[in-house]
């Protein structure tokens, strides 16, 4: 397997080539962030700018998000660095008629599994981490007054352990080699964690999970599914959802947002990575996707052909609950 540093070099080469040949106007990838474990979405318009592109286990944003929110008239043909989940979201955006396949040149890459910076921080409570670098299968974590090595596979994002497709499902060019499709985890074993709870315990678990929400909507804004110009939570007439910190208002937002993503979520984890207070909203979304798999046998974004599960029906769909 290539290291992420090797992949990064190949991404830069491909980007320089595409830009200098005029094949694309812009390459969307990642550049190294100014704080540890936070690479950021970067837009390279020239071969020189392509030098800033990088690739690592700290690339936690879903870049397909930037395909739908681009200002009109800016860079019509773009290349994008896409691992498995991101490519599946691109498929979703094509199916939902947000973009066309021709608009986007996909630089496919196998996902190494991304690091959960909250997990790393939790290993060093209240300490200031100043630098984290990858060294093979380990992270070297440096901070004020300490330096330690941490096995990378201990601190990956939860969604990465149970990823069902690390390789891009569509691509124009593969960077590096394909990897094993999964990390070995079984999503059905860990999805929907509150199903194990008694019905009367579930609400408390739900409240506990979302209690720190500050309603910044980073989860929504980081999500490539949430491209509505005016989100239901912002609608004023009628106002579907109160704007306060009351638990009912917060719960309404999260339940409805999760529901709007039903049958579309690729479990990319961008929402959890974006959250400034560390909320695990996958406890909600993973249940819905599991339900969709069980009811309709569908996993979002795996191919361009299959029909989105909530836009079709079968005469024999389950309906025991309807009287």
């Amino acid at each position, binding site marked *: 397997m290539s290291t992420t540093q090797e992949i990064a070099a190949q991404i830069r080469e491909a980007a320089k080539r595409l830009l200098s040949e005029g094949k694309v106007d812009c390459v969307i990838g990642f550049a190294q*962030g*100014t*704080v540890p474990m*936070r*690479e*950021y*979405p*970067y*837009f390279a318009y020239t071969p020189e700018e392509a030098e800033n592109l990088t690739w690592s286990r700290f690339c936690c*944003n879903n870049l397909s*998000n*930037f395909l739908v*929110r681009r*200002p009109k008239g800016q860079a019509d043909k773009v290349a994008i660095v896409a691992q498995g989940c991101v490519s599946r979201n691109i498929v979703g955006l094509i199916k939902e008629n947000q973009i066309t396949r021709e608009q986007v040149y996909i630089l496919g890459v196998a996902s190494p599994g991304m690091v959960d910076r909250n997990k790393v*921080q*939790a290993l060093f*409570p*209240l300490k*200031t981490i*100043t630098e984290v670098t990858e060294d093979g299968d380990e992270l070297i974590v440096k901070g*004020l007054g300490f330096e330690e090595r941490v096995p990378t596979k201990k601190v990956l994002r939860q969604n990465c352990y149970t990823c069902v497709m690390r390789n891009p499902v569509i691509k124009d060019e593969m960077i590096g080699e394909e990897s094993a499709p999964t990390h070995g985890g079984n999503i059905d074993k860990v999805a929907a964690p509150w199903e194990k709870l008694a019905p009367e315990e579930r609400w408390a678990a739900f409240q506990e999970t979302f209690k720190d929400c*500050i*309603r*910044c*909507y*980073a989860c*929504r*804004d*980081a999500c490539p599914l949430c491209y509505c*110009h*005016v989100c239901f939570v*912002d609608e*004023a007439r009628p106002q579907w959802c*109160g*704007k*306060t*910190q*009351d638990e009912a208002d917060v719960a309404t937002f999260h339940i409805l947002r999760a529901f709007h993503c039903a049958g579309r979520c690729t479990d990319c984890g961008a929402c959890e*990575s*974006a*959250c*400034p*207070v560390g909320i695990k909203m996958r406890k909600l979304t993973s249940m819905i996707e599991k339900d969709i798999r069980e009811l309709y046998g569908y996993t979002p974004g795996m191919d361009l052909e299959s029909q989105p599960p909530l836009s079709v029906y079968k005469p024999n769909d389950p309906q025991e609950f309807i009287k």
Partner: protein
Amino acid sequence: MADKILAKDKLGEFLGQLKKDRQVFGPQAVEGKAQWAPLQAEKDLLWEFSNTHLSPKDFFFPQTECMMRFVNQASDEQGMIMQAEPELKQARALVNIRPCDAKAMQVLDLIFVQDQMTDDFYWRDKRDKTLLVGLACNDPCPTCFCTSMNCGPHSSTGLDALLVDLGDKLLLRTLTDKAQALAEGLPEAAKADLAQAAGLKKAAEESITSRVGMDQVNAREVMDLYEAGLWDRVQESCLNCGTCTYCCPTCHCFDIQDEVQGTIGRRVRNWDNCMSWLFTVHGTGHNPRGTKKDRVRQRFMHKFKYIPMKRGGEIGCVGCGRCVQLCPVNIDVRRVVNDMNA
């Protein structure tokens, strides 16, 4: 008043005195993060932490705050008349607030209380009734840039008292009349203590290597900065979420809404933010800040150009670095301001 020495084994008495007629809050380790919480036991109070995860502005400007109430019955004329929500009943103290956050509250005073008409009842009530006991930073973070923002790791602006951790003891510097009583009966600091505190201050200031320049931002005209090319790049990765504004100790935008349930009603204000498309949209659909670029630019221009112009050079940023740490796409305010200053 001369600086005093508070031995760490006398801390219980010190906090006890504070608690006598106040509710006391302090940074504590909650789920591995430094967070503000009511102080139950002395041992819970943190002394070694960079800063609290979120800012303490919500003590004065809660994210959701009821402003007034009414009886929701149009037929009852008196009922439809607004009644102000009662004032804060108990005084409070925030212990071990960092100097940057105290400075931020002072900056916000300039915005919430300007003159007879612009005198925010709710803000002022809570400010007047809250004592701020600061804890100087001896180990600033790599993301800190307070020294570039009219502030510093041992700054006392906005505080009622400042504590400096000298290891086995604390140096107590009282700064306002409100805090005088805290120093009563404590021994005066010796020359060596003062020298140690001065040394810690110097070392802390020197350890802050992030520099942000403001001279050109101050010198350039509004339209020159507004039309600068940098905004096209700054806005690109922005998600237009509210993280930076909600974690920021000086961001203060809000929305006001009425809520009714049957025969009761209230007017409530909630934090709002300039990143939101809805923030400025007119009833007609016209939006003066309709693009992401407009909104991203607004936030930085507001903090670093508009507020200094209007508030005698005070900056709408104290360099706490929270937005640098928490922005999901790493839009680094230090980089943006340095670009503005270029």
